[in-house]
């Protein structure tokens, strides 16, 4: 599959915290605010549960983009979790960029339980970005390829 291939369908993993963003995604769903089916959501209790290892693993297994969503800074259900997540991801994403996984493939977005529109808008713009970047070839585990 080449980047120019029109039939390219990206694999996108979205980590959503249970209290804000997962509920925001639910609200987007019940409000019928569509976004591409390429996005698959994994529920975590808090954005601070997202180990950088999970994101590396996703890229290794062929993900083309990874987005992490959490409560707005200051509104974390566990008080401080998203502050750790924010710092951790800033570091991880700059390192990923350095080794060739472009910054556009990774994103952190704060989405509250009431922001169904923001969730859908975020996913639409993120997917669009991934389409423009094409397939991720940098971190893929060659043993997983056909």
């Amino acid at each position, binding site marked *: 599959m080449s980047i120019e291939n029109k039939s390219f369908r990206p694999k996108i993993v979205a980590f959503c915290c249970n*209290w804000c963003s997962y509920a925001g995604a*639910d609200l987007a*769903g019940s409000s019928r605010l569509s976004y591409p089916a390429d996005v698959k*959501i994994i529920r975590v209790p808090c954005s*601070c*549960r997202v*180990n950088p290892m999970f994101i590396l693993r996703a890229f290794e297994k062929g993900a083309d983009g990874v987005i992490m969503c959490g409560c707005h800074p200051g*509104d974390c259900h566990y008080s401080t979790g998203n502050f750790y997540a924010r710092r*951790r991801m800033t570091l991880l994403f700059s390192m990923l960029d350095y080794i060739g996984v472009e910054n556009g493939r990774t994103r952190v977005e704060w989405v*509250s339980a009431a922001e169904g529109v923001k969730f859908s808008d975020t996913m639409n713009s993120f997917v669009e970005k991934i389409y423009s970047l094409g397939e991720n070839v940098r971190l893929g585990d060659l043993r997983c390829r056909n």
Partner: protein
Amino acid sequence: MQRIGVFVCHCGSNIAATVDVSKVAEMALMEPGVVHAEDYQYMCSEAGQAKIADAIHEKKLTGIVVCSCSPRMHEATFRKAAERAGLNPYMVEIANIREHCSWIHKDMEEATKKAVILMRAAVAKVNLNTPLQPGESRVTKRALIIGGGIAGIQTALDIADAGYEVDIVEKTPSIGGRMSQLDKTFPTLDCSACILTPKMVEASAHEKIKIYTYSEVENVSGFVGDFTVDIRKKARSVDMDKCTGCGVCQEKCPSKKAPSEFNRGLNNRSAIYTPFAQAIPNVPVIDREACIKFKTGKCGICSKVCQAGAIDYEQKDEIITEKYGAIVVATGFDTINLDKYDEYAYSQSKDVITSLELERVMNAAGPTHGHLERLSDGKAPKEMVFIQCVGSRCSDDRGKPYCSKICCMYTAKHAMLIRDKYPDVNVTVFYIDVRTPGKNFDEFYRRAVEQYGVNYIKGQVGKVIPQPNGKLLVQGSDLLDNRQILKEADMVVLATAIEPNPDVRKIATMLTASIDTNNFLTEAHAKLRPVESPTAGIFLSGVCQGPKDIPETVAQAGAAAVKAIGLLAKDKLMTNPCTAHSDELLCNGCSTCENVCPYGAITYEDKEVNDHGIREVRRLAVVNSALCQGCGACTVACPSGAMDLQGFSNRQIIAEVDAICR
């Protein structure tokens, strides 16, 4: 190896219309560990749950995946169903193929593909699930109410009447809130104070209710059933026990230039003051910013005239720490700041006022002793114009996108009262829509129009221009007649949008209660759990949740009280078993996890371990599962990978990632 059953729900046509459910069930059978798969119309129905129970018995299932709506909706339902069938409830995983799939995608093939992937991720996770046992925690049988308006008072009374202790924390010197500032109430035209003050007295006299006025919540820790709250009791400078409420100090106070908060700044009060005559407690406070004694050190008149010797200039803020089982937020509202609405000349003319200011003008205890008069020159107005939706239903960022809900009714009330008391005053109302859903509401509005001759014009006002002769020129449009209107008015009243009390953001952060973009607190479910916050043990009462009038506020206050009572009536609560635990062989006792834990749930112990035959004493992290809330901060911070979270373990999440990227 697990024996997994997969149950795919049609949810009527909610899922089945866009997802090929039988295909999802068919594909499930090819997943590792899956020994049973079926689809059914409504999995959450009794028949659906019976199917799950039957399959658990017949196929000896050790774990199940339900492909259905969001786990936030029915996870508890299916966990209970599994438990009844003898399966550990934490062996249940939900694949959200409704909110995250069928409802947002239109193409059947694409949606089915995605549903299959979501199902695979859930199967991959449940393969690694282990049975978990919830612990128990105790419930402190006392409730805290933040805010002493009608919402807080009603909730407190209802909880106290059920036999539980209640504390009210109110920021201002008296309970009573916004309702105490109102003159009359719609649609019955009851005097607001007459129906509120008996409730205030009842609350203050109730043996189960303790009221902290002039106090604020400073810090909240703990969790449902066991909150620890620091309350800052601000220095009143008056001894509550000694003061007799005689009022001499207020009369004699030489500093009388502080704007009265209670009268919305329309007149002034003394530096030592009670906000209003019926204030509870009837004990004044010294406003230290306005007091001459505090500013210059000279004066002290109040202390000299106080027979009871209650004045205490040395008084300091006091922090009270108290335990609560439930917390009810009843922080109420304020009107929005009108700085961005310069076209209405609010800041330029004293005769342009907000509706809440009009309440004070029309009240006998207000700045004009209840006489309707222009605040600029004291003359009686002949022409009054009311402008609706000032800052409400606003599409730009100057105002609020929502309807403030109460304005149509209170404007009809104001118009009616003015026409009744001053029949020679002409009243014109500019409106976008008149919204009167409520018992006897539309009848009330029609009375204003038909019986009292209030002139309603459908249209917006573009500008209010103060004239040299002191009048106000109102430029508006009449949409029904399609013409421009120029009207000279003596007074203009703005139906200003309401917004949650600005302090609510700080309080929501302390409580970790979620809040929406308009600063209204979010309810656990918009329809089915309207008075509970998603954060367990936090309940919502009154306008902090959304605009509402007094009867709705009182109804919601009662509902919040019932929910709080339901919690306080329990002796013990089941705790979430999805807590962190440390692998003793991997832990090196570095303290990193302890530093990131927001609950102080991690301590260190010297323990003897057997590391592949080597016995030695090591310093190890130990998680107190009663305190751990399961956020997982420690699991990522741990440099040696010893910490993991039950229910969301590293292996489980990686299995989900792998399934999605397969």
